[in-house]
């Protein structure tokens, strides 16, 4: 079973994307396995709406472990399974909180295991702020890392926010040669393209 890892800065919308993408692929509730090197791992099944309420937040570094779920994509008459891994957001510099750093370290440790990387960027933030303050050093590094991978795409998220166009342009400028899919994790826009991309690499 192939693994799709969701990477990006904190608050980019990784968790909301993961949950809504699962919903888009037809599940009513999502069975998440929460794993953490120190605390071990456990599994819970959560209704989509509850998952959004509990796991999505505008507070920075809300996700601190790996939240993974097994999903499936229609494949001819059958379906193909893959594992989606929502991760702790990455940030520049050295974070002062040990649990946050541990979450990031665990994200890094897991990247190697994934065949497909979906790199989420906040286009609304990038539209609003200078790229120096909205695209992180870590985003450039992830993109470079992605070049070694066949299945790497950038998800330019939050396109439902007004005046986001400028953000999308900046993303394409900053990451030339990469596959960019504009999406809204909130409104499930662009999800068909994401599904097709994932399907191509399964």
């Amino acid at each position: 079973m192939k693994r799709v890892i969701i990477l990006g800065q904190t608050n980019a919308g990784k968790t909301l994307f993961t949950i809504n993408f699962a919903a888009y692929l037809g599940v009513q509730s999502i069975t998440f396995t929460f794993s953490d090197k120190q605390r071990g791992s456990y599994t819970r099944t959560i209704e989509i709406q509850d998952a959004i309420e509990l796991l999505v937040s505008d507070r920075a570094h809300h996700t601190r472990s790996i939240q993974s779920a097994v999903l499936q994509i229609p494949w001819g008459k059958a379906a193909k399974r893959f594992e989606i891994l929502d991760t702790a957001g990455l940030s520049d510099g050295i974070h002062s909180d040990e649990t946050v750093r541990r979450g990031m370290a665990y994200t890094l440790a897991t990247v190697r295991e994934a065949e497909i990387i979906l790199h989420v960027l906040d286009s609304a933030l990038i539209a609003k702020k200078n790229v120096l303050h909205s695209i992180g050093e870590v985003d450039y590094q992830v993109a470079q890392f992605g070049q070694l991978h066949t299945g790497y795409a950038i998800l330019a998220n939050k396109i439902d926010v007004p005046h986001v166009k400028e953000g999308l342009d900046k993303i394409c400028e900053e990451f030339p040669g990469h596959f960019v899919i504009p999406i809204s994790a909130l409104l499930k826009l662009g999800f068909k393209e994401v599904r097709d991309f994932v399907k191509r690499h399964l």
Partner: protein
Amino acid sequence: MANELHVNEPERIYGLVEHGEISVSEALSMIRKSTNQFGKAEVEISKEERIAKIQRELTKLIGLDSVKSLVLEIQAFVEITQRRISARLASDPVVLHMIFKGNPGTGKTTVARIIGKLFLEMGVLSKGHSVEVERADLVAEYIGQTAQRTREQLRKAAGGILFIDEAYSLARGGEKDFGKEAIDTMVKTMEDQRSDLIVILAGYSEPMEEFLETNPGLKSRFPITIEFPDYSAFELFKIAEEMLEQRDYQLNKAARRKLFRIIEDVRKKEQVNFGNARAIRNLIEKSIRQQAVRLVSKKTTSRTQLMEISDDDIQEVVDA
């Protein structure tokens, strides 16, 4: 700092991020470079080789069979738990704080150091060093200072092992004693820090058992108990030989016989504390000095003579 390190094992790199030594960006670029240079497989082999080397260091220790197999068991369990977590299978957190029971000189510190190195390679600890302390290093004479002193030692041990020798003495003096403050501080830090520190409480079996009985909260926090049996006479003899060999000395036949007899005699009389390697060290050092005295009056000495310990060099009296 990061670039000077030339770290190219991914596990180490993640550790550096976790412990705030480098940023995620630096880590990503290091991982990218290391996989370009060496490829994934090679890196993994070297990690395994290093673990195997430490395991050999452990198995080479004389005696301690039950200790060795328990350590290897723990290691295997940690490894499999890590793999299960990576496979996102249900797994309980692994708590690695330990109790070491046994007489002094039965190899407890040596084993603690090896465990530190082992868990460093496995990515459980970030430094793998071991800080060895006793009551006086933790407990102060005045109110309020004990917590500070204990925290200081815990800080030194962060990333490695805090080895508390004769830990039961922390319970000496009952409720009002500051030893209790040291225990509370330690437990609190273990709880807050959770990972990246292993505390080992060591001491004689019986007082350790009493100590744990009177502090029921401790038992669950130290789920691993390792018993260090006294060495047998033969094991002690082997240890003596090894010590001499490391110092470029050799026992002649008569000396071997005499040494073994002395060890057996003392073991039989069950002289307190003789089940340990420390008494052997004293015996060996004494014999080395005796040999020097014997040889010093000679004008010339051959290489063989300089290496040889004869039966006359070995003293009958053993002070444990």
